[in-house]
């Protein structure tokens, strides 16, 4: 890792591609520096949510999370690259630059908060705001070997978050230091009258609790790469030695979470993306002689990426008359089942634990050969907690034979960020994480 020298920001970014937009200041004036995923609106920096359709968009307001970080003395140094609107697992579906993994620049950072994980891994004393819809904080945290927490749905105001799936989106923290999670989540958490879904939360003042027991779903041990499985089993031993009881449990709802997630997320996404028609903000280069609906179509065809188009099609289909009950309404029911399953297990355990991703960060050439379905399946371990709205966190727990970081994910009950923050701090004392070699 390297210290943050703003004069070198550009050359670091040339190597890793973590930022879509960067500060033009010469030095950090605030008491700390941070970056934010590019789907969080910022007054002074272009905000595109990874999409060419928003190119040139300068929001009139700061997202609440960014405003709170600034009010606490933070200086926003960059907006991080991401999959277009959060649609992806590797940040490779970006309308702009694809961030490169600090441990091997031939490999992906994970997604969709890939640029945030990259920045957290590369810069010392740096914290990055990420956003998770289906695993977009934990996945890149795992691939880049950093800590990442997505709090309970509704814990952090979504005002100023460019929506992917409003009932799923959560703003969280990525950092190489476990103690940062508590510190910065404390800053951005809390009720905000501009986001009614943030106003039902209990107070956020987490203390310390020792992790006494975790449940490991047997379903979560399927389909893992050898490296991931062995690193995870070794971590279980470490946890046991720390006095944590480990129990393998059945969690049958896990396999239904993924299809339900893609129905809900794309249904909501397809309505969220309907507003981008080239009329009011962002990119507006289109043929104005066309009739309005032809203009909208040509504009959206030109500026949305393939994955965005795929999800608009999927999400529009699942909410059509005749299919709505079969897909959208059913997915809402599945969400309840998943929540119930977590509640059942968390009634007798502090957390549910599984590896974060089934493999380590893949090479870009392998990603290019993956089908969309293969890529969707890679998220099967991070999706359940996201669809349930339960807080979850990835911590580094080992390194593969390829030298790439491996992470494991703890899931706690709604509003119980306390246990996650406590675990992270205890874990950091016993697990020595490697730092990427950064040279510019």
């Amino acid at each position, binding site marked *: 890792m390297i210290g943050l020298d703003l004069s070198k920001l550009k050359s670091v970014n040339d190597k890793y591609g973590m930022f879509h937009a960067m500060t033009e200041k010469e030095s950090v004036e605030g008491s700390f520096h941070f970056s934010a995923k590019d789907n*969080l*609106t910022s007054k002074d920096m272009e*905000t595109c*949510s990874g999409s060419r359709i*928003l190119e040139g*968009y300068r*929001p*009139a*307001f700061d*997202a609440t999370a960014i405003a709170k970080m600034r009010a606490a003395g933070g200086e926003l140094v960059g907006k991080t690259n991401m999959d277009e609107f959060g649609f992806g697992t590797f940040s490779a579906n970006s309308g702009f630059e694809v961030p490169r993994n600090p441990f091997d620049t031939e490999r992906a950072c994970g997604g969709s908060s890939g640029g945030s994980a990259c920045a957290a891994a590369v810069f010392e004393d740096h914290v990055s705001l990420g956003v998770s819809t289906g695993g977009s904080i934990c996945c890149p945290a795992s691939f880049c070997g950093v800590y990442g927490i997505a709090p309970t749905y509704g814990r952090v105001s*979504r*005002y*100023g*978050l*460019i*929506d992917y*799936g*409003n*009932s799923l989106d959560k703003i969280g923290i990525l950092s190489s230091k476990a103690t940062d999670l508590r510190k910065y989540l404390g800053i951005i958490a809390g009720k905000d*009258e*501009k*986001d*009614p*879904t943030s106003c*039902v939360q209990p107070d956020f003042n987490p203390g310390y609790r020792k992790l006494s027991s975790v449940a490991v779903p047997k379903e979560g041990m399927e389909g893992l790469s050898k490296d991931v499985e062995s690193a995870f089993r070794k971590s279980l031993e470490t946890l046991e030695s720390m006095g944590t009881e480990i129990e393998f449990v059945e969690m049958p709802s896990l396999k239904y979470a993924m299809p339900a997630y893609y129905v809900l997320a794309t*249904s*909501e996404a*397809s*309505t*969220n993306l*309907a*507003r981008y*028609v080239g*009329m*009011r*903000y962002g990119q507006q280069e289109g043929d104005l*002689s066309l009739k*309005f*609906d032809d203009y*909208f179509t040509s504009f959206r065809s030109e500026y949305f990426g393939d994955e965005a188009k795929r999800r608009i099609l999927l999400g*529009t289909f699942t*909410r*059509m*008359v005749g299919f*709505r009950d079969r897909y*959208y309404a059913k997915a*809402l029911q599945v969400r309840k089942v998943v929540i119930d399953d977590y509640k059942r297990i968390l009634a007798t355990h502090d957390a549910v634990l599984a590896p974060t991703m089934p493999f380590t960060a893949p090479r870009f050439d392998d990603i290019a050969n993956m089908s969309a379905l293969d890529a969707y399946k890679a998220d099967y371990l991070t999706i359940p907690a996201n669809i349930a709205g339960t807080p979850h966190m990835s911590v580094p727990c080992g390194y593969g034979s390829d030298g790439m970081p491996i992470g494991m994910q703890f899931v706690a009950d709604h509003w119980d960020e306390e246990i996650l923050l406590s675990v992270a701090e205890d874990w950091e004392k016993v697990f020595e994480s490697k730092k990427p070699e950064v040279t510019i």
Partner: protein
Amino acid sequence: MKIGLEIHVQLPTKSKMFCSCPTTDAEAPNTHVCPTCLGMPGSRPVLNRKVMEYGIMLAKMLGCKVADTTWFSRKTYFYPDMTKSVQITQYDNPVGEGGIYYLGGKKPIRITRIHIEEDPGKTKRVGDQSSLVDYNRSGIPLAEIVTEPDLSTPAEAREFLGQLIQDIRHVIDLPGDGERSIRCDCNISVGKERCEVKNVTGLKNVERALTFEVIRQTKILKAGGKIERETRRFDEERGVTISVRKKEFEADYGYIDEPDLGVYHIKELAESIKIKESPLKMTLRLADQYGIDQKMAKQLVTTSVGLAELFETVANRTDVQNAVKWVVGPVSANWKSLGDKDLQPIVDTICRFSAGGITDTECGIEIKSYMTGEDASAVMGAAADLDALIVKFLDENPGLIDDYRKNDKAANKVIGFVMKNSGGQYSSSDVVDATKKLIESRL
């Protein structure tokens, strides 16, 4: 023939439905806007509680069952005036369902549902090639009332709307131009298949559009043709409806729940809300309870609900006869000049008359003087002058009393004479009252 209506009414909140922008008329286009009503990425809706309250009030007025829990949905369609290409409306569990509303107090019209939603902006064509969009209206709250196809004629549909608007105006203090701002989707079937005429503005146009459809559909059926299910629009200038799209091209709005707003538990709120009696109900009750003519009751209520309430007070304190004599008489005649003055002195005056403390003339003068703010002696002097003028005419035309016995329209001769010869200094109701009083004293 079956007619069903979907009626959109603007709700009179001070700020918009999901942001704090004002709802008042703006001086320039696109000035009453903010990130939320412009649908800027990252903005979010926050419900104006007053909109939910109005929704509940109207649901109650329409005899609907108010939902215990209600929520919002997203209706997706693409149009330039729709900032998010998504309208926040209600689909499942609207605020009210299954009501009955009595037309003219008699004919039941079933109400399918009532829901609340946001209005889009306005598109204005400029020249042939382009349009301008004004988003000042974007996010103004609306109530949509959907009826079953229980209306039988275009005239009845108009009557229904007129009554509905009057009741709505009364229950939620809708401003006076509510009638013009009403927008309606009209469903009409003469045969089996129905057509929908979208977005017709105003009562008169609803009747015109429906009448045109009756004729059009009847002609097709008579010629042995088939009515196609379709959506049409009304051309106000030409008075015709025009096909917009056939059924198979009907938009699929792909409704999903609005995740940013959550679920509203409104049971307690609904129980705490009491609505005012509607003018129609009040009219029917007054006629029934006090044994007065329905026409008279309607006249009282349409002049002002306050006047009708005064009638009730007086009737209860004295008797119905006195209430009719004074409240329907001089109080009603001078109602406009009352302003916001207290009503109690009027009640007291009539009570004193009723108890025999003052004479008929004194009572009339006191009431008028109080209501208009004119000096009592001036009122009295004017009344005396008026009386003198009438007496003079009656003395000069003694046959008139006999004519009056046969037909009370004979009084019009006196009234016409006085109006013509007094230079318009007396109100017509004063002249009518004085004439009747003086004729009847000679019968």
